């Protein structure tokens, strides 16, 4: 009886745990970029190689987080519900069939900020807590969006 109660409590705690404890992630562009917001679909299209242009027709320079980083895994999973191995294989298909060139990987939030600040057409993503006033947030992924 005691064991049953113990198991019930453990299961209850596990069930109450959030599915993912990732921090919020934001998509950012240069502060001078005329784009103010992007839809989730537009962000997906940019980061899944289906489009390389901002809505106003200017070509984007897409930047990525380190290939094995948690923020990258969370970003793609939030957007597409696909796990990182699937994303890596997907991008290999796009690159080698000439459909798209991959977003350029950077070393982390700090380099992402530097690159976005210095290029009007750059777009990237980082942890919400790293944002400064020299970049503009155009889309926000909340951890509670996870399916």
């Amino acid at each position, binding site marked *: 009886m005691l064991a049953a109660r113990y198991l019930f409590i453990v299961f209850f705690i596990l069930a109450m745990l959030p599915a993912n404890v990732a921090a919020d992630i934001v998509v950012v562009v240069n502060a001078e970029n005329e784009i103010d917001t992007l839809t989730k679909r537009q962000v*997906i*299209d940019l980061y*899944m190689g*289906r*489009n*390389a*242009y901002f809505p106003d027709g200017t070509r984007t320079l897409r930047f990525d987080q380190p*290939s*094995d980083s948690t923020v990258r895994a969370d970003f793609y999973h939030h957007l*597409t*519900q*696909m*796990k*990182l*191995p*699937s994303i*890596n*294989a*997907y991008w*290999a*298909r796009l*690159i*080698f*069939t*000439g459909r798209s*060139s991959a977003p350029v990987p950077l070393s982390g939030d700090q380099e992402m900020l530097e690159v976005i600040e210095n290029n009007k057409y750059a777009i990237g993503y980082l942890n919400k807590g790293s944002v400064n006033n020299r970049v503009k947030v155009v889309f926000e992924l909340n951890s509670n969006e996870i*399916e």
Partner: protein
Amino acid sequence: MRQYAFLFFAGLAVTLSTQIINASETVRDRFQVSSFGTLGISHAGKDQFGYRNELTHKGQFDKFSIFPDSVFGLQANAQLLPSLNATVQVLAEDQVRQNFNNIVDWAYLSYQPTPNTMIRGGRMGIDLFMLSEIRNIGFAYLWARPITEFYTPVSLSHFEGIDLKYTKNSELGYLEFKIYGGQTGSDIRVSRGDFSVRMRPIFGAIASMETNHWKTRATFAATHIDETRNTNLTRLLNALDQTPATIWPQAGAFSKLINGEGNQAYYYSIGLTYDKHDWLIQSEIAITDSAWPSVALTNGYLSLGRRVGPVTLYTVGSYAKSLRDSKTVSPRSSQSDINALQTITENAFNAVLINQNTISLGMRWDFHTKMALKAQWDHTWVRKNGGGLLILKEPLDHDITLNIFSLNLSFVY
């Protein structure tokens, strides 16, 4: 020696590509070199029945080998103008015929007049199935190798010509339409020796739709089999053509059946993939319609994968079956030379027919963002007179089963 040369070439390719990529950030914007490869070991085949996963490979007769699954490639992309790019892909693998023509898999120019339109010209991957343009890039797909029943019968890797692609983002999803035309060919090995086939013209169309989790596509291709070359086949056809109808009335009909030249072939396929959270499903079915029994067949597969952390466990069921039945020459001639010719003809006809299916179990471990380790077991049932995908040292006059064990390391850089 030739086999080790391609391993050396592959290592050199990887080293060079890394050095070039690291050489200059400025150069990287305009010129990119990528490499891919698979280092694999497998055990397959029987003493009399050689297994291969590509018709361009030699048979594997109950032996371990690193060559059937190992391939290395180097791809260079150069941006010549803002909308004009050049791409070259070279392959090092253990092919039946190693020459410059077969090593250069792609060499084309692509021009993008609008963001949604692309025109390419040169030698390009032939877009017949889901894995058409990535069949040598093991990292880009789940299994140890492209599904044998579905991919092996079509040994065409590239074509020379032009294609036009149009893409559109719609409410339905990401739509892609492509048409192409040109010529193609392949140097393969069959039970009767090395075989070359040239198809000209070939033209086709592809429509695909992609959403976040689903991708569906339909393809059509039509071609004219212009030229086939095989010494033993030529001898057999000459013998059949010179046999008087009064001695063997069906000799002429067999000659027409066995000779592929002048026939048309039509290829239709549909495919579907699903990838969400931890589930991966992929399926394709196809039919190749032709009066030439060697290529007329239907085939397909269904693959189901479940991701557990960095490991994906999967199972695949696949089949391939010729649209023509085997033949028995009857009545037999009492003349010994004609009787021998009838036996050779019957064996030659039946040796190209395909009737097999496979169940596969495997796992892929993505232990690195650019590398994956795969292990796979295939159990294949090959029916009597259905061994067209094998190298036969003797006629397949009974059902057989084959087991293929594979361990692969795939990478992209």
